[in-house]
């Protein structure tokens, strides 16, 4: 395998049941302007009563088939990032995805248990696995429907989280769209109670603690990742960071003096956890953008950051 492993295509979708801003404002006795300016999410999605996690993934795979690849015979690895795999909690959900995609062929599959940092982590893990096992193509799937674990009367979480999915195709083909750089990954377990869930109970989030963890950690993580890849802040065309809320993204952009290079773009999607970055990637990144910083952070408190550079060979 002579070509470096890169990202060939990113596809995403949301669950079937939509909840709009008016409904949310009414439920929590809030002004719609508060939701628009603070969380920024004017539309959220949940699994419908008939829909399970694997159904949402299947919906996304059908979209991916139409957009990028109809024949999965070249796929040699499936990895799923999730901490909520639905009605079937065992085995790992990537085994069920293998059954959907290539039922008559054995390939390696495994899940990664991470939240909002998961997509960035998984790219690094998959690249290493593909290189060591000489695998040419892999699918990274994210799907973590928090609607199954949040208390719908809890304003802290119900206004933010949304059910979505993503499918990312990693490949050693020479026409990959994005080259993957050198990442930085970390955890501050002392802050785990900022967002966590005890068995048999609902998700708990301390907004202040999470906000503090992000503001005190992420700007330096981003700067260090950029330096590690031999760039500076100005050289980066776009920053696609975890879309936790409009307030958080705007605050980071202001603190780092990045303005519109670090946009909030999930207003009609919601915070889809590990699907957050892939869900907005194609909205934020334009054809003229060549160097992209991706940064995921959240439950753990965990973070992952990397640089994607456009494959110029593909453009020629």
């Amino acid at each position, binding site marked *: 395998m002579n070509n470096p492993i890169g990202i060939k295509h990113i596809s995403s979708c949301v669950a079937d049941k939509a909840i709009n801003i008016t409904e949310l404002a009414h439920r929590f006795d809030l002004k719609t302007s508060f939701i628009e300016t*603070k969380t920024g999410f004017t539309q959220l999605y949940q699994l419908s009563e008939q829909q399970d996690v694997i159904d949402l993934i299947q919906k996304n795979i059908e979209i991916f088939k139409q957009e990028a690849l109809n024949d999965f015979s070249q796929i040699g690895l499936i990895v799923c990032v999730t901490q909520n795999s639905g009605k079937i909690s065992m085995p790992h959900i990537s085994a069920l995805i293998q059954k959907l995609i290539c039922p008559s062929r054995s390939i390696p599959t495994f899940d990664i248990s991470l939240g909002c940092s998961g997509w960035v982590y998984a790219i690094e893990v998959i690249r290493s696995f593909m290189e060591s096992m000489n695998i040419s193509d892999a699918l990274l799937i994210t799907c973590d429907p928090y609607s199954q674990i949040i208390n719908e009367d809890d304003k802290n979480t119900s206004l933010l989280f949304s059910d979505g999915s993503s499918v990312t195709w990693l490949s050693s083909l020479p026409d990959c769209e994005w080259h993957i750089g050198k990442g930085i990954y970390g955890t501050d377990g002392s802050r785990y109670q900022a967002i966590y869930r005890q068995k048999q109970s609902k998700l708990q989030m301390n*907004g*202040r603690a999470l*906000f*503090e963890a992000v*503001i005190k950690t992420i700007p330096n993580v981003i700067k260090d990742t950029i330096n590690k890849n031999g760039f500076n802040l100005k050289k980066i065309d776009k920053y696609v960071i975890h879309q936790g809320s409009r307030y958080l993204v705007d*605050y980071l952009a202001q603190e780092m003096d990045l303005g519109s290079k670090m946009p909030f773009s999930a207003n009609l999607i919601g915070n889809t956890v590990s699907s957050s970055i892939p869900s907005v990637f194609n909205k934020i990144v334009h054809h003229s953008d060549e160097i992209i910083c991706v940064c995921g952070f959240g439950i753990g408190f965990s973070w992952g950051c990397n640089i994607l550079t456009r494959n110029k060979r593909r453009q020629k």
Partner: protein
Amino acid sequence: MNTNVKIREILKKITKNNDPDIWEKTFEFSPDYLDSLDMATLALSLEEEFSIQIPDDNLIDMRNIENIENFINQVKK
């Protein structure tokens, strides 16, 4: 710059509000002036500016400039 002026500078940056009422020492912050996210930002900014720690319980009690000033003066003694 004294404590009171620093607090006002921080509040001005967070609220972006020019209503003169908010700068009265005993004006009670309603959620229209400072919502929960603004309060988290306020806590972080005060902690950095004055090198202090503000527990959640104390933050809940900070409902006007006078409260904030009293808390800071107390912990800085």
